[in-house]
């Protein structure tokens, strides 16, 4: 009974840890900005690593090595968001501007203009009207 419970707890922790680390990897690869990547690296990766280390601690049971694992878990929980915060702050202080909704809209209109030539004419007309 207890063994079954331990097995399924370890299995669930490992599965969720793998899932959250996969989400973090996809976020680091696909998100458009340093800051959004720092966001996913600080939150999702911490959760994935914490769940995987909890699976290790549950599988070890009551041993002296479990203390190492729990210590490692708390250390990762403390330092991983701190490191991501430091990286995001160094990005802010070295002059990288965050991607905002206006940039998103601009890039969308530029993409539309690249795909459809009629759209660029409309945009140019609007800009001309703005200047006049």
């Amino acid at each position, binding site marked *: 009974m207890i063994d079954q419970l331990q097995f399924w707890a370890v299995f669930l922790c*490992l599965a969720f840890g793998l899932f959250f680390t996969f989400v973090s990897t996809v976020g*680091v*690869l696909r998100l458009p900005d340093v800051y959004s990547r720092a966001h996913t690296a600080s939150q999702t990766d911490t959760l994935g690593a914490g769940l995987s280390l909890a699976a290790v601690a549950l599988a070890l049971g009551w041993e002296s090595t479990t203390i190492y694992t729990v210590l490692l878990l708390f250390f990762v929980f403390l330092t*991983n968001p*701190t490191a991501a915060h430091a*990286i995001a702050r160094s990005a802010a202080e070295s002059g990288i501007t965050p991607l905002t909704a206006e940039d998103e809209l601009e890039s969308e209109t530029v993409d539309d203009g690249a795909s459809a030539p009629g759209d660029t004419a409309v945009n140019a007309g609007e800009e001309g009207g703005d200047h006049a």
Partner: protein
Amino acid sequence: MSPPLSPAALPTPENLALTELFVPAAALFVVLAIMLFYRAVAGPTTQDRLLAVNVLGTNTVVILALLSVGLDEPWFLDVALVYALLNFLMAIAISKFTVERGGVL
């Protein structure tokens, strides 16, 4: 494993399945770490590369912890602890170095 199967030894297959769960999980974590190399190589800014290497280091710590159970080597946990400390120190030091170059670092 053992031919005389006593009732007290019944949870042993369960334990074997438990430790055999960890090496495939570590293999999947290695695949995710290899995927993270793309951002570490092709990141447009220094901070992108630093962030990717930091996430990769956390992945390495998790892989070491999983392998310490899966291969039954308890001293891998010491290596994982030292690696986590060095990973944090690396992230802080390089992010400080990119802001004020030529100071302490």
